[in-house]
């Protein structure tokens, strides 16, 4: 069958002619990426504000009369859920995935642009439903972001009448949105790469996003299943997760259900979710480090293998979140072992980032500051993960502030460092303007030092034994008064970090308005997105002819070449081969 794909394709690009089709109902992956980004950052700011409210309560428990336990648990829950799902997942995959995949692979757009557009609008709907849960009777759910039943759907928890239902519905809608986007990302990587772009020539950003999307497509169904079953338990009284209960003096009609089943489902999604956020960050940071150190990423093959291996292993470690959940205790042996095995490929990635700096030509540009900041925070967060992943060490630390410190370091601060690095890095390409360097540096230092001041002490409060999700500690024998002092310090640091994010917003606005015009490749990078004929790239990205790729993504400082980078689409020069071989063997 003659299916004239490419020629056909150009007709199908739906060249936008009105404002609405160009910026609102747009099918252009770049516009969709920006829409995703703006909504994700917007909802992230809400989550940031919620975290400040929580911190005010923990730091100054006697001061703010509007903070009741009811509000507190609602804020805790919504903060967590937004940050993990609606900000990080959406921004990395919906935002950067959308923007980078077609550009880095040399495609004109995503494979299914219409579905891609729907993906964003459905995502927006899920966000609206989530926010709406604050305004229904009883307000948002306060079940903690893990939403463990039976508690999440019983009366003793805030928002157990409507808040929890809207939360579950919102998650289900989000998963639909993710599916539509995810099918695009995977299929585009597999089927729409330009000539010469083999899989092993793809930049690591694409690898990270690609594998993360596959994880998402396989893992989100678990959350979907859990959400459906819990909604049914709540709405019509099935007993999937509900055993026979007596709660607050009332018995339920349910019988035999298993609360632990929910936890298995939740974490079967929840652990891959960690890597859904982390793998794109790993990929993007590799590209940032390589570009700004003017050196190829060290051990590219190892890096790809590590991404794939981490992705695969992430499906067999989930129950390390459940060591003290009352599950069959013998599972502990298995999951501790798999969890510590996953540390090996992760460690290799860290070594290779550091070895990329080694013997490089490091330009500490704004994105590079964030990338190196990431190495530090990720080492910290990764190492504390070895405590919690090891079943016995987890015993005294589980459910304490150590856990809070750990996961904020590893999946809060670290990915956010990459996000900011990436935003500053690609800002010139996305907007055609350079971000303000001074403001960006202030933003970096406040965020980097501020977050460390927040999370380092938290680990020690956890070791001390302070449990998480406490509204107030009252008079607890083993918690010294000095711990309250620490909490006040943490709260103040959190306020500083939050202020820094306002500086970021100001920077974005200022740079959009008055920023220096950027040329098409300000960082002198090799990857395809910097080689577009226009900046920002026009609809269809490449003008009349698709690019052709002649080399891998990391030809920086190739021996014998006078420039310190050769873009991927530059043909081989005569004699280059021999120079390269000589250079590589000179070590």
């Amino acid at each position, binding site marked *: 069958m003659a299916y004239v794909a490419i020629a056909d394709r150009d007709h199908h690009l739906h060249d936008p002619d009105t404002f609405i089709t160009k910026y609102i109902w747009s099918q252009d992956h770049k516009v969709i990426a920006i829409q995703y980004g703006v909504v994700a950052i917007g909802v992230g700011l809400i989550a940031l504000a919620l975290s400040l409210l929580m911190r005010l309560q923990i730091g100054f428990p006697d001061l703010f009369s509007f903070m009741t336990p009811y509000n507190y648990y609602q804020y805790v829950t919504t903060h967590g859920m937004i940050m993990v799902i609606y900000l990080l997942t959406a921004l990395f995959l919906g935002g950067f995935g959308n923007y980078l995949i077609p550009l880095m692979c040399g495609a004109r757009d995503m494979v299914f642009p219409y579905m891609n557009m729907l993906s964003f609008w459905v995502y927006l709907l899920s966000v609206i439903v989530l926010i709406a849960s604050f305004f229904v009777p009883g307000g948002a759910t306060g079940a903690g972001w893990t939403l463990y039943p039976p508690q999440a759907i019983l009366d003793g928890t805030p928002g157990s009448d409507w808040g929890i239902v809207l939360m579950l519905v919102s998650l289900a809608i989000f998963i639909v949105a993710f599916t539509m986007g995810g099918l695009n990302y995977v299929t585009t990587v597999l089927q729409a790469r330009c000539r010469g772009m083999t899989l092993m020539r793809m930049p690591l950003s694409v690898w990270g996003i690609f594998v993360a999307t596959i994880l998402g497509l396989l893992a989100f169904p678990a959350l979907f299943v859990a959400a459906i079953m819990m909604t049914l338990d709540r709405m019509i009284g099935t007993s999937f997760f509900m055993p026979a209960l007596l709660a*607050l003096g009332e018995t339920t009609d349910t019988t035999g259900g298993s609360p632990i089943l929910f936890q298995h489902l939740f974490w079967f999604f929840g652990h891959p979710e960690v890597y859904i956020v982390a793998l794109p960050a790993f990929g993007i940071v590799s590209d940032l480090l390589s570009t700004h150190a003017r050196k190829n990423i060290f051990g590219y093959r190892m890096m790809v293998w590590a991404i794939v291996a981490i992705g695969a292993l992430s499906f067999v470690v989930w129950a390390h979140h459940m060591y003290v959940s009352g599950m069959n205790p013998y599972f502990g042996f298995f999951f501790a072992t798999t969890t510590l095995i996953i540390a090996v490929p992760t460690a290799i990635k860290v070594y290779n980032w550091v070895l990329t700096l080694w013997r490089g030509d490091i330009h500490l540009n704004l994105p590079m500051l964030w990338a190196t900041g990431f190495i530090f925070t990720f080492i910290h967060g990764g190492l504390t993960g070895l405590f919690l992943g090891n079943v016995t060490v987890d015993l005294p630390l589980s459910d304490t502030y150590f856990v809070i410190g750990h996961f904020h370091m590893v999946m809060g601060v670290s990915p956010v460092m990459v996000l900011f690095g990436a935003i500053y890095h690609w800002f010139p390409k996305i907007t055609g303007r350079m971000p303000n360097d001074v403001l960006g540096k202030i933003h970096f230092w406040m965020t980097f030092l501020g977050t460390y001041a927040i999370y380092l002490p938290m680990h020690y409060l956890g070791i001390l034994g302070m449990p998480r999700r406490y509204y107030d500690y009252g008079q607890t024998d083993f918690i010294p008064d000095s711990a309250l002092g620490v909490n006040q310090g943490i709260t103040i640091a959190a306020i500083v970090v939050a202020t820094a994010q306002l500086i970021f917003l100001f920077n974005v606005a200022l740079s959009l308005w008055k920023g220096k015009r950027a040329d098409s490749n300000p960082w002198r990078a090799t990857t395809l997105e910097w080689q577009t004929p226009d900046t920002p790239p026009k609809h269809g990205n490449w003008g009349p002819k698709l690019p052709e790729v002649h080399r891998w993504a990391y030809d920086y400082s190739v021996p014998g070449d006078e420039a310190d980078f050769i873009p991927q689409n530059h043909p081989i020069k005569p004699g280059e081969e021999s120079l390269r071989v000589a250079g590589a063997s000179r070590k």
Partner: protein
Amino acid sequence: MALAIVIVLLVAGSLLFHFLSPWYFTPLASNWSTIDFTVDVTFWVTGVVFVGINLFSAYALIKYRHRKGHKAHYEPENKKLEIWLTAVTTVGVAAMLAPGLVVWGDFITVPDNALRFEALGKQWHWSYRLPGDDGEFGDTEVRHMTVDNPFGMDPEDPAGQDDILIADPVMHLPLDQPAHVLLRSTDVLHNFAVPQFRIKMDLVPGMVTYQWFTPVKTGTYEILCEELCGIGHFAMRGKVVVDEQADWEQWLARQPTFADTLARPVGDAALGAANYAVCTACHGAQGEGLQALNAPKIAGQEDWYMRRQIANYISGVRGADARDVFGLQMRPMATILANEAVLENVIAYMRTLPDVPPEQTVFGDVERGAKLYTTCGFCHGAEAQGVWSTNAPRLAGMSDWYLARQLENFQQGIRGGHETDVYGDQMYMMANILKDEAAINDIIAYINTL
């Protein structure tokens, strides 16, 4: 350059913080020194890696910073180096994992001579059960649970009759004897954690989980719930008291069996009327209360709450604080009811008194009070009617001025401050969510509308 220096400073600062800060494990009070050992091993291995990699990258950042004319080295990969790094990492990981697995094996293997007891969690309260002389726990089921049978004991099961029931959230354990804790929940997930023992395990409704430890130091240790269990999660506290063997046996002998609780005398209202005469002077003939004498309305209050308060007055848990002027007056009165039969008679009589709503004396912002009351309603009930399973007494239709004073007393620890007053301790934490002066009036104004 600055970044490299900052990284070095952060590494140094982290190490100093680790070694100098006062916030570290509480002194160990159980046999689980092996758990601490695994933590130490992990600290050493990860610490070396943390310092090593960060200093290396700081060095690289300085040494290879951009200088004019300098070009980066071209090296796509170095197989030998990568294999070495992988091997060393694997050894480090194994060094942490191996002791972890061994100790976990110990943790899930309960010694044969362990003392078995059950910890029963419910929103937001702990109670305990020992198997009694026959060494066997009786059957329990949720459908048996009532105000008179909070453990849900099967009354037909002979094995349950001698089970020792400890309804208060304070458990005593003998020193140096392994304790095997069976964990059961009636409503949601809870978690039995004692930081000094390093142990922690969830309670899951519908199944029985377990953990074990041997207490090796006498003293009182707090049990914290460490699995979010609803709005009162942070106030769900229990205690483990570790006694010398002899003290423990004495304590044990005082605890009632299930059969004992079934045999509680039935009150006789007619006899109670005579005993109640003493109370009339302050609380009024109809139990309606008298503000002038600072005596609250008692008619219509729940039986189980009366029993507990009288017991608290007698034992000095309540009314012993010098600041509690009116409580001090009540104490000697309460001792009249020290005899269980007398107490039951009086309670039976009080049940016959008419429940007339008292006059409103506290006014405030009802709307704000309604918002604040949301939290209170979880325990006291949406209608402030009182809920036995959360140990929360009735508030609606009771003396409002008295509620105001009690809230103030709770906030200042005048009430609930006694170290064995575990219910009061909970209310102490909850009273402190009212952070400004108007709040108490607002909330009581709202309760007056119920």
